């Protein structure tokens, strides 16, 4: 099934949670909606599930308007942030719930078979006789996924399913979840505020800010070519440097922009000559060396695979850059920082 939001809006009383949001969830793909808390992510998910009714716009499943159709008659499975497992039922009964009530009701033998099969898929078979309160967070998360996919819904909705899990386990579960979703090829809407998780899982990424779509497209596109300063700084670290376009070269599709750090060569992409704007430089787009702008190191941290150095260029201008592990200069040292040739992304004002 493919799904879409069409100019959808929703308000909690006077507070507008979602405004004029449109995007598609392609068949069999994972669409990740990312945004800070309060950006309307969960509201979108509840609108898709039918647990909220839109104030304006439409929710489309395979082109059909879902207006007025209650959650029990929509072809969705939901994994809630709190998992919402039924504490008075066993894990097996939780997974069977959707197969024994309403739209997907199956025969007794078929239910047992489907519960077994789904439990095996999500590796919770040994947990089947237990009850949710006796499970760990990671186990509950898996059971919640099993319960949601047992009915083989057309659209799977996941609301920050890993946010309650500690960091170590979260990474493992993230990979497990990604491989599961790819294997069963289910159309998925995944809501998160974690950019690493978003970039890892997404086939399509939608960046939400204050209830509006800020950018939408392939996941790395938003990281490499952010369309706004918000997207640039929300997805990963970004140095935002004021810049002026010096000239464009239609033949190569490149533009030269001048900044306090020196000149950079960036993609032209319809930039007007002489335009003013911002040069977005990721920490990995900068290098410390013999050329560039003089700076004073104010912080250096070894983060394992690389070191992160923050250096002050002027009273209120700081740059963050990435250096090889163990190669950090000392705090207080004078260094020179320059953009790596060809890196950076220009954002016109």
């Amino acid at each position, binding site marked *: 099934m493919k799904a879409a939001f069409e100019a959808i809006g929703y308000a909690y009383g006077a507070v507008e949670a979602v405004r004029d949001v449109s995007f598609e969830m392609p068949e069999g793909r994972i669409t990740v909606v990312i945004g800070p808390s309060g950006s309307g992510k969960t509201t979108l998910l509840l609108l898709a*599930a*039918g*647990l909220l009714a839109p104030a304006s716009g439409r929710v489309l499943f395979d082109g059909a308007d879902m207006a007025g159709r*209650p*959650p*029990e*008659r*929509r072809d*969705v*499975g*939901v994994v*809630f942030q*709190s998992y*919402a*497992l*039924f*504490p*008075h039922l066993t894990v097996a009964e939780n997974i069977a*719930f*959707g197969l024994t*009530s*309403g*739209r*997907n*009701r199956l025969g007794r033998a078929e239910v047992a078979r489907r519960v077994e099969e789904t439990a095996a898929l999500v590796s919770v078979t040994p947990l089947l006789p237990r009850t*949710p*309160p006796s499970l760990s967070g990671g186990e509950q998360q898996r059971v919640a996924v099993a*319960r*949601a996919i047992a*009915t083989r819904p057309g659209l799977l909705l996941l609301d920050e399913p890993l946010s309650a899990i500690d960091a170590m386990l979260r990474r493992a579960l993230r990979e497990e979840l990604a491989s599961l979703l790819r294997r069963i090829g289910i159309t998925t809407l995944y809501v998160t505020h974690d950019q690493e998780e978003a970039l890892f899982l997404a086939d399509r990424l939608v960046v939400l800010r204050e209830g509006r779509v800020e950018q939408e497209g392939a996941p790395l596109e938003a990281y490499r070519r952010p369309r706004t300063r918000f997207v640039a700084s929300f997805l990963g670290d970004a140095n935002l440097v004021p810049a002026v376009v010096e000239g464009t070269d239609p033949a190569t599709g490149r533009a030269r922009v001048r900044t306090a750090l020196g000149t950079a060569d960036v993609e032209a992409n319809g930039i007007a000559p002489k335009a003013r704007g911002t040069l977005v430089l990721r920490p990995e787009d900068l290098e410390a060396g013999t050329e560039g702008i003089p700076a004073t190191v104010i912080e250096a941290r070894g983060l394992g695979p690389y070191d992160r150095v923050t250096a002050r260029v002027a009273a209120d201008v700081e740059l963050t850059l990435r250096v090889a592990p163990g190669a950090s200069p000392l705090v207080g040292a004078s260094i020179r920082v320059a953009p790596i040739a060809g890196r950076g992304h220009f954002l016109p004002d």
Partner: protein
Amino acid sequence: MSAGAGGLAPRRPRAGRAGAARIAARAWTASLAFLLVTPLLVTAWGAFSRSEWYGRRSEGAAVAGAGTLFHYVWSTWGSALLLSASLVAVVVPIALLIGVPAAIAFERRPFRGSSWLEAATLSILSVPGIALSVALLFAAGGSPRFWLLVAGHLAYTVPLVVRTVRHALALIDPRLEDAGRTLGAPPGRVARRILLPMLRPSVTLAALLVFTVSWGEFNASYLLTTPLVQTFPAALFATYTTNSFPVAAAATVIFLLPVVPALLAIQALGGEALTRGLQA
């Protein structure tokens, strides 16, 4: 030696004060327990005593020996006992049928004015039985009758159900109901398969509360019955004012028989009913 004595000296009065306080607290607790238990013991003793000492011409002649005592009470007040039993049998299910859905509505689907309605329901608890009875008699017209009595008891018991169940419901994550809906269960089925099983301890608690209140209710019952058709607590009042002590005691023991297990069950259930929803 002297240092040791000096070290002990200031401690002794402190220990003494603490000891005295403890003894005073225990004495207080013991006297409270004595005050609470003694009437029950005296009543039980009276009910099972032999009562020939009342003399041949008194009521004692008919009630000599505990067995005959209870037989006498039954033959005199059996109809009152039956009325109370049938009243409770009607009031408990009706109070639950009204109170549980009302609690769900107040907690999950509040509507304009629902908090006023809930406050109004609760405020009935503070209306004196006599006022309520007179109001019911005026409203319904005519003389006391069974369904008027049921209405009076419901006025006092439905608020208990609403309060108990609503409190338990507030501890249940509403997302559980959402999850049920998205899994294909319509609202009625969600209530049957998710809410009611999770609310069972609190509904049981509410039923026991309704039972004890309805079984023991006197004020409204006294005014909504006639001297010939009485509930058991109204009959108890009559035994206290007209019968001998052993007869009144035996009647009281019969009255307490179903109440004590109910109270013990309430005590045992109270904790579980209120924390059940937190497990999720």
